[in-house]
Each structure stands twice: as C-alpha cells, then as structure tokens.
C-alpha cells in the first residue's frame, strides 16, 4: 500500500527509495515468492534502480513505465489477497457459528449476532460459539501481527516470538500466576504481559553487544526459551491432575472456555496496539534495509525498534494470556502472507488476516475433524511443524537471510 502511491509520477528521487525494500530484499521467504509474481515485471524491476545508481542510464521512460506497471499490479494483487482472506474469515466465522453439536441455519445465526433473542440458539451461539470464534479471530490476528513484526525487523523468518522465547515468557508467567498465586482474569493478563515484556527486554539486552546482531538475538532467545519452558513444566507439574485441561492451555494454547470476559482484553489490545504497528509499517520496511540505511533515510532506528517491540510483545502477551501460546501461529502467518500476497508493500494486514484464519480453521478442525476434541494449539502445532521444517530447509538452501 505504501509503495503504490509513489509510483505514478515517481521521479528518480523518490522512486528508488520506496521501491527498494520491496523488490531487492523481499519479505520473509525469498526467491520463489518474488519470481512467482509478475515475472517479467519484477525481475527487471530492480535492474533500472541498480543501473541508475551506477549512472549508466537516466531512467528511460519505457522502463519507468514498466516499474510503475508492475508495482500497480502487485498492489492490486495485495488488495485482492486481503479481500479474499477477509471473505474467507467471514465465511469460516459464520460456519463455526452454525456447525456444532446442534446445527443452526444461517438466518438464526445472523439474528443472534444482530442481537435478537432466538430460543435455543441465543445461548449456544451467542454465549458459547460467538465468543470462541471471536477470540480465535482476535488472538490469531494478534499472533500474526506480532510475529511478522519480529520477523521483518530481525530479517529472519525464524525469529518469531514463539522461537525466541517471548511466548514462552508470557506463558510461564501466566501459568505461574494461575497455579502458584491463584490469580484469575485481568491479573493474569497483566502478569503475562509483564513476563513477555521482561523476557523481550532481557533477550534484547543480553544480545546487545556493540550493536544488535540478529543471529545472536535468536540464539540467546532459544536459550531463554529453553529455561522458561522448564519453568512452565515445573509449575505445571505442581498442578493437580484435574487441571490437566487447563494446564494444557499453557503448553500448547487452547480456546476452551472462552467467554466475553477473555475476549475483551484482546479486543482492546488489538484496537490500541494494532494501529500503532500499522502507523510504523513504513519505518518497519525501511529497517529491513539495515540500521545504517534506515537511519540515513530518516528513521530513528532505536526508538522505532523499541516502539515496535513493545507493541508487538503487548499483542502477543495479551493473546497468550487469553489463549495460551497457540503454537506456530506467530511463526507461520508472516511467511504464508508473504507467499500469497507477494513481496509488495507492508505485510502487516495480510499476516494478521492469515493468523486469524489459521486459528479459526485449526480450532474448527480440532473440535470436529478428528473425532476427539484437540485444543487448537495441538492442531496448529502438528500442521505447522512440516511447514516450519520446509521453511528452514528452503531458507538454508537459498542461503536466505541467515
């Protein structure tokens, strides 16, 4: 979105700047996603920039035209993807409201959602299914947004909050608060957020040594995550057996027992922190060029980064406090969004939508597909794991940004 408006009259001064992040570096996954787009347009898309920098060409009009054209096309594709994703979410959302132990036809469901009182359906749909579906969408969007911010900022698809320990921190804190301190409700959210932020800060400081190296941060995060996971395991081993279902939530994430009370904090967090992140999307895509370049282009790198981290961690922690760390959603949303939306523009909104769709579909599948009710985190974990490994293989083989 931010790349498109610059295009039509984009003279040499502005063109390369807004173009570069999308074309040459590409978002999280690389290679195929760029070439599978408009191949004739995007490959030469970077060459006039490079040529211009070398001063060989003075941007012949037909090339500028090609760049403009391909950029417009990618913008269109991105809008189309966003629309399709939103439509899919709406469709699955309604489906989860209709299908269950009892089937309710669409018109009844719609009437319940609009606030009418329908005998029977009002309780099942309005009290049970609606908050659950809402929580799925909201938490998924939070995980997707938080994940893609980290992945973009650290320029590594593997640097998602669930790998570098932030989800583990929020989860360990929440489990501790519930089981050891017998807290509930908003208190748990607060503790989880404190835990997530504390871990993020610790990882950041521990890996800061004469500048920030993404690789060091990831490795430090892995170490911290291992430590926190063992804390969670210890806390859970103290939990009485009949709390096993509840305990599983803090290991894998689950939407069981969702009510409006758990939905509200997540909704507020998304409504407040989401726009903060979106307002920084341009700075975020510039940070991807590296600190020095971003600073030269007018981004206050440290301040922006801290703002981004706080907002992203806040989203992750609020969602984790409500649902537990739903495995791999933060990790998967960004790369999937990048593949389907193409490399143009900001990935924030597509990733949020992909995250929401993932959680919604996985929860639906976990409830009804396997004959036995799996919590949503087990489904995303089991389905996400092969994709994760595929992603690592591809990242390693292409050399990627590692």
């Amino acid at each position, binding site marked *: 979105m931010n790349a498109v408006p610059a295009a039509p009259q984009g003279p040499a001064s502005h063109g390369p700047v807004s173009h570069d992040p999308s074309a040459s570096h590409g978002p999280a996954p690389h290679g195929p996603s760029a070439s599978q787009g408009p191949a004739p347009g995007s490959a030469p898309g970077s060459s006039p920039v490079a040529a211009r920098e070398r001063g060989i060409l003075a941007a012949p009009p037909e090339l500028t035209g090609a760049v403009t054209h391909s950029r417009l096309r990618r913008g269109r594709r991105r809008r189309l993807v966003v629309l399709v994703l939103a439509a899919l979410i709406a469709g699955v959302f309604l489906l989860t409201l209709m299908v269950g132990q009892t089937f309710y036809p669409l018109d009844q469901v719609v009437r319940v959602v609009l606030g009418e009182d329908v005998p029977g359906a009002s309780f099942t749909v309005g009290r049970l299914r609606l908050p659950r579906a809402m929580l799925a969408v909201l938490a998924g969007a939070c995980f997707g947004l938080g994940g893609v911010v980290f992945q973009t900022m650290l320029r590594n698809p593997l640097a998602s909050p669930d790998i570098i320990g932030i989800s583990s921190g929020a989860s360990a804190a929440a489990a501790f608060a519930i089981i050891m301190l017998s807290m509930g409700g908003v208190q748990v959210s607060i503790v989880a957020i404190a835990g997530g932020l504390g871990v993020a800060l610790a990882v950041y400081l521990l890996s800061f040594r004469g500048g920030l190296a993404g690789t060091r941060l990831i490795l430090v995060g892995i170490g911290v995550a291992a430590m926190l996971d063992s804390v969670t395991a210890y806390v859970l081993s103290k939990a009485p057996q009949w709390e096993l279902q509840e305990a599983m939530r803090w290991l*894998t994430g689950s939407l069981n027992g969702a009510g409006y009370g758990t939905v509200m904090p997540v909704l507020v967090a998304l409504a407040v922190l989401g726009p903060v992140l979106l307002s920084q999307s341009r700075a975020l895509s510039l940070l991807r060029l590296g600190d020095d370049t971003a600073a030269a282009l007018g981004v206050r790198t440290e301040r922006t980064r801290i703002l981004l981290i706080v907002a992203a961690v806040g989203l992750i922690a609020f969602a984790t406090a409500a649902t537990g760390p739903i495995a791999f959603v933060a990790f998967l949303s960004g790369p999937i969004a990048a593949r389907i939306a193409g490399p143009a523009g900001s990935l924030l909104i597509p990733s949020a939508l992909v995250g929401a769709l993932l959680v919604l579909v996985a929860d639906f599948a976990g409830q009804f597909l396997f004959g036995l009710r799996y919590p949503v985190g087990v489904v995303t974990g089991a389905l*996400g794991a092969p994709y994760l490994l595929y992603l690592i293989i591809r990242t390693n083989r292409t050399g990627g940004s590692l």
Partner: protein
Amino acid sequence: MRVLWLLLAAVLTALLGAASLVIGSREVPWTDVLAALQGSADNLNQAAVTKRIPRTVLALLAGAALGLAGAVMQGVTRNPLADPGILGVNMGASLAVAVGIAWFGMFSYTAFIWTAILGAAVTAVFVYAIGSLGRGGATPLKLALAGAATSAALVSFISAVVLPRADIAQSVRSWQIGGVGGAGFEGIGRMLPFLIAGAVICLLAARPLNSLALGDELAAGLGERVAVARAAAALGAVMLCGAVTAIAGPIGFVGLVVPHLCRLLIGVDHRWLLPFSALTGAALLTASDVAGRIIARPEELDVGIVTALVGAPFFIYIVRRQKVREL
C-alpha cells in the same frame, strides 16, 4: 597435570555421589547410610537411603552418558553449540517413546530403549541434514535453529499423541520433564548394556575425532575415513542419549556445559576430553539432582529443570562471546 584434574574430578564425583545418598528431605545419620549400603532396611532412615541408591546410580550414569555424548556431538559437528537437548535429539527420543506407549502399548524398558535410540537417531540425522544445507555447511546458528525448531515441532507432536490418552498423560508428562527420581534398578540394568556399548564406540572414536577437528580435507589427508568416523561417533552418541532419555526423560544442557568446562581445564585432545567429560557430566548431574532436593525442600525439583536453569545461562554466555568460535 591432566591426570591431576582427572583424579580431582573422580574425587568430586564420588563426594557428590555420597552427598546424594545423605541429603534429602529426611536427615539420615552416617551409620544408617552405611548400614543401608550393606543392604539393611531395618528402620525408616535406612529405607530412605535404600530408595536413594538407585537414584544416585542413575544420576551418575545418565550424567556420564550425556556429558560424553555432548563432547562427541560437539566434535562430530565441530560446533560449540551442539548438545543432545538443543539439537532436539532427546526430544526425538521422547516422541518415539510417547508413540510407543500410546499407540503400541509398549511397557518394557528394553522396548523403550530401542525405540528411543531409533527416534534419537532419526532426529539427529534429520537435524544435521537440515542444518548443513546451503552455504557454509553446518554453522552453529543453522544447527541450533534447526534443532530448536525441530524440538518445537516434536513437542507439538508429543502433545497430539498423548492428549487423547488421559490414562497415560500424567505419567508421560512427568517423565517428559526429565528426572531421576523414579528410578529403579530394573530400568538401570536394562539401560546399562546400551550405555556400555555407546561409551565404547565413543571412546574408540576419540582419535578420529582429533583428526576431524582439523577439518574434513586434512583428516582425509591423514588417512581418516571421514564419513565412517563421523557416522560411528554419532551412532555412539545417539545410543547414549537415547538410552538415557528412555529411562530418565529428556535432560538438556548437560552435554553442552560439560565439554566446554572440560576443554578449558584439560585441552582439546579428545582422548582425554571424552573420559573427563563423562566424569564431569556425572558430577554435574548428581550435583543438580542434590541441588534440586535442597532448593525446594521438602519437595524436589526435577533434575531436568535444574540443568535447564543452570545450562541456559551458560548457553547464552557462549553465544555472547565475541564470535561463536568454530571448534
């Protein structure tokens, strides 16, 4: 000098083993400890010590095996961050055992051990293959990432396998933390042949590992069959981790910390490093077990939690050093 360090480590290990018999939620005088060691279980004190004996033996054996396996893995991959826990090998063994219990109704220790070794081997090959793809071969970062990601994936699979079985969920969950508390001599006895075989393979691999440390080309030039040496050493390490994981659950970070400490004290010659790592590993795991009993008195912390709390900061320290040095 090396002999001195080795003796020191042996004395330390023996002391810690004794401490593990004496220290616990019940205070036991020395006379009762000695009596219990001679097989008597007349009063409560002696009975308590009798319960501590297999646990101490398991801690010593498991620690030695994990320390040795860690040293070999770091040698094989020439990677300072290699560790059975970080590379996901222990988690692979866990998944295999969980599948065996939940789907095939396995219950004998021998079956556990074979399954665990199989799972560990598959995971080790898998992680190493993923980590060494692409430019630069198996760099520390790529291996650690591949291992961490694989671990995360395996944990999800374990949840998916165990969850439908409420009857086994509790026992699998407590086993999965990693502890030596529930040990009995039967399990230890079944584990022992595998440990001995693995240890012999690893110790025989000491000289090839020294050549491998010079780089593959040079090692081949010195007449080493690089692939064979690497595969054999890795097999030994995998047997050790698999057998330990089957009995004690996945215990992380011992294999990471111990070889680094040992290398500081005794140098990089694997012929000395490997036995020394085994001794120090036994000392570390026993110490962690004792510490877990002291910290949370009168309850106890599982040893897997203690080693993670001790080992993870050490891991971070290694990562933070200016550059992650190739071994």
